[in-house]
């Protein structure tokens, strides 16, 4: 007779406990997230900043709620006519939270990785529901305390304790129902993004397009218009009726008890949500992977590790080298050509990194309507574009040459490649692409701007020099402060980007050089700075002193690229894995 292996055979045991086990999954998931959040001083600092910001808003909101409550109690305020607006506002918040839950689930929270690879231990329903439950608690961690603080202030103002209970209950219901709808939706979106061959193939382009559309909608004010247009229709939906529940029993407000009851009954959405979440998770987590796509964090976990494993490179096979590499090798030698094409290949296969290089453009998008509305391109725009192109050149290829090597770094160090070759190749990779861009983009802007022809020609002539100087400085900064760990760009895309120190150092260098150049070139700018300094320090600062300081600074900054390049070469030749921080 076979021994009893100690496992319960009956399904009833499992069914009886699945909610408790989901709670265990949620608890462990929250513990992991919390430990990830406090894993480094930087992350703690960001958390403290965010909590401070939330605290400030909560304090301001609490004061406003107290004042409103007081005005209501005194009969100085009649909000009954505005109740639809409140309903629309609450419904908009619900839609926003649902959208956030969808995006998070479509990212890492609904991934195979989030299951911890333990789908062989327990039912899909247990893990999927547990992960969704963790999301509910995560939302509540952010919104419950502020909501209670606001409701207490409002209750004090209005002179009734009821809002504390009703607002608290409403917050719980809003968080639960929004995640209940958003989580399965997000896992479904993730399934489409990662398991449909066509979508997977063009996912990066689609994500970039979506990102640009989002920023475009924000910067042009379209998003605000859409939200404003949705408030009224949303106030008519059951999501708006959470406002009736929150304000139920508040003196002076004519809420609908029936709508409040319906709002509570919306909790029933949890039942179909558990069914939908389990089904979509079953479909997604156990689906065959799409082969030949770009890197995906969960592919490692879920795809077959045998012959059909890892992503494949279409096209070239065997010993043939790209035509460009052969062409370049004729001029630079094979090691340099190999390093240059290697840098391009990495950029091409991890295009998310290029999003970082284009980051300043996102900030610029907000000014586009103003520029277009102003009837022309302002004279500072070409110089600004040149700075942005130089910044992007640094980020893309020279600001993290050691980190970009990843696991290959030991082989590169031991390959016999000299420091000059290694550093020169990264600078060359950047210049080959960015010098033409640095001439065309600022040049086109200069031609369209009111800059005189002499200034335009000067800018065109200076562009290659500026980009080269930027890259030479950047490579030294990047070699001094490499980064090997990856950051999560989106839910499923991780990429190795330059370190914060490198980003900051390079940005400061470019801005300082531009400001010093401006002060040397423009008397008006010197006078403004002299006035500012005189106001700040006890002695009078003449414009001539500003010129002298800016001149010395400019000379130092202009000499920096050569020193930086030499440092980078020496650093590579003496680098060890320990000193690189790998």
């Amino acid at each position, binding site marked *: 007779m076979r021994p009893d292996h100690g*496992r319960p055979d009956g399904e009833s045991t499992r069914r009886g406990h699945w909610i408790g086990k989901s709670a265990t999954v949620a608890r462990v998931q929250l513990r*992991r997230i919390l430990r990830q959040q406090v894993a480094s001083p930087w992350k703690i600092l960001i958390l403290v900043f965010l909590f401070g910001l939330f605290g400030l808003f909560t304090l301001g909101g609490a004061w406003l709620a107290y004042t409103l409550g007081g005005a209501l109690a005194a009969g100085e305020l009649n909000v009954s006519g505005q109740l639809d607006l409140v309903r629309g506002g609450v419904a908009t918040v619900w839609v926003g939270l649902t959208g956030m839950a969808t995006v998070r689930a479509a990212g890492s929270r609904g991934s195979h990785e989030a299951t911890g690879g333990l789908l062989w231990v327990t039912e899909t329903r247990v893990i999927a529901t547990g992960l969704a439950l963790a999301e509910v608690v995560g939302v509540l961690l952010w919104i419950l305390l502020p909501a209670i603080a606001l409701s207490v202030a409002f209750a004090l103002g209005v002179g009734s304790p009821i809002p504390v209970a009703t607002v608290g209950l409403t917050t719980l219901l809003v968080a639960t129902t929004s995640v209940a709808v958003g989580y399965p939706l997000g896992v479904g979106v993730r399934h489409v993004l990662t398991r449909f061959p066509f979508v997977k193939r063009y996912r990066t382009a689609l994500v970039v397009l979506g990102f640009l559309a989002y920023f475009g909608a924000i910067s042009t004010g379209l998003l605000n218009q859409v939200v404003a247009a949705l408030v009224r229709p949303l106030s008519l939906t059951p999501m708006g009726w959470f406002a009736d529940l929150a304000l139920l029993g508040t003196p002076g407000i004519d809420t609908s008890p029936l709508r409040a009851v319906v709002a509570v009954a919306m909790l029933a959405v949890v039942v179909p949500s558990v069914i939908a979440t389990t089904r979509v998770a079953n479909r997604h987590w156990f689906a065959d992977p799409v082969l030949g796509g770009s890197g995906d964090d969960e592919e490692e976990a879920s795809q*077959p*590790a*045998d012959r059909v494993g890892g992503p494949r490179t279409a096209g070239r096979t065997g010993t043939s080298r790209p035509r460009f590499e052969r062409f370049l090798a004729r001029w630079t030698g094979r090691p340099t050509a190999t390093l240059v094409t290697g840098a391009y290949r990495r950029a091409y296969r991890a295009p998310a990194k290029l999003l970082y290089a284009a980051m300043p453009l996102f900030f610029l998008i907000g000014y586009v309507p103003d520029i277009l509305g102003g009837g022309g391109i302002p004279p500072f725009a070409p110089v600004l574009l040149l700075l942005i192109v130089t910044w992007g050149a640094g980020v893309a290829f020279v600001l993290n040459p050691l980190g970009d090597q990843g696991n290959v770094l030991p082989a590169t160090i031991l390959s016999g490649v000299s420091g000059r070759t290694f550093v020169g190749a990264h600078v060359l990779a950047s210049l080959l692409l960015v010098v033409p861009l640095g001439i065309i983009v600022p040049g086109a802007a200069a031609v369209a701007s009111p800059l005189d022809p002499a200034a335009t020609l000067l800018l065109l002539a200076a562009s290659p020099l500026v980009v080269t100087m930027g890259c030479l400085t950047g490579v030294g900064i990047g070699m001094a402060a490499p980064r090997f760990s990856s950051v999560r760009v989106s839910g499923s895309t991780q990429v190795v980007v330059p370190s914060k120190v490198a980003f900051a150092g390079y940005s400061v260098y470019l801005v300082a050089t531009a400001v010093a150049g401006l002060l040397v070139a423009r008397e008006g700018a010197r006078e403004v700075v002299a006035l500012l300094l005189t106001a700040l320090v006890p002695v009078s600062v003449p414009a001539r002193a500003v010129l002298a300081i800016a001149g010395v600074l400019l000379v130092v900054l202009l000499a920096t690229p050569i020193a930086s390049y030499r440092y980078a070469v020496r650093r590579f030749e003496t680098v060890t894995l320990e000193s690189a921080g790998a």
Partner: protein
Amino acid sequence: MPSPAGTDGTGPASSGLAIETDGLTKRYGDVDAVVDLDLAIDHGQIYGFLGPNGSGKTTTMRLLTTLLTPSSGQAWIDGVPVSDRPRAIQRLGYLPEEPPIFDELTGREQLRYVADLSDVPAAVADERIQDYLERFDLAEDADRRIESYSKGMRQKLGIVQAVLDEPPVVLLDEPTSGLDPRAARAVKDLIGDLADRETTIFLSTHILPVVDELADVVGVLSDGRMVAEDDPVELKSRAEAGTSSTLEDVFLDVTATHEEAGEESDTPEAAAGR
């Protein structure tokens, strides 16, 4: 969408073996990962599963652990079809090549988590966890975060969580990978103990002496197909008739023979004859 033949559990019934497959096949597009695999492994057996890199071993293990859906054919774990995931997973423990563990948890927290999900009563779980931690020299580090663990420690933790709830069937993918000789010995002893308690071990590894020492039956997979299956002594004695005398020689012989046959069948003459 209809299930692949038999995988919905409506096909022929299992004969009650620990692991059983009938024509198990997994295809990805036009690539055959596992082809027509028939396994019949009895309770308490240690089954050594060998094969070159990319031969389909990991895919087979994922099919048996319900993590992949077969394209066709059937598989049962302890008499339960793998298509019945909730019941099948109650009968198996699994150590994948990369141990599935959360870096942010401590070793003890990870094991308690798996025990909780597997319905092991808390008191029993705590006792077993402590026993295993001591057995694998992990007790002192049990309350440290896993992110600080070495590869070997992670591997040991993965093995413990695979056997923690004493399942009747345990599938181990490269269990001794990354382990020092002492830890490897502890794993081999554990496998022996489990087999003594009638637990079936499905052991995939490239370390042939481990299979030679432990396995009751050895199966060799090549290009997704089973090319040899027998007990190790029999395999070696058969091979001794030729030039082989160790399991390594047998492995090299049967996989090379299979590859040559595959190459021949791909020649224009062979293609014309098909």
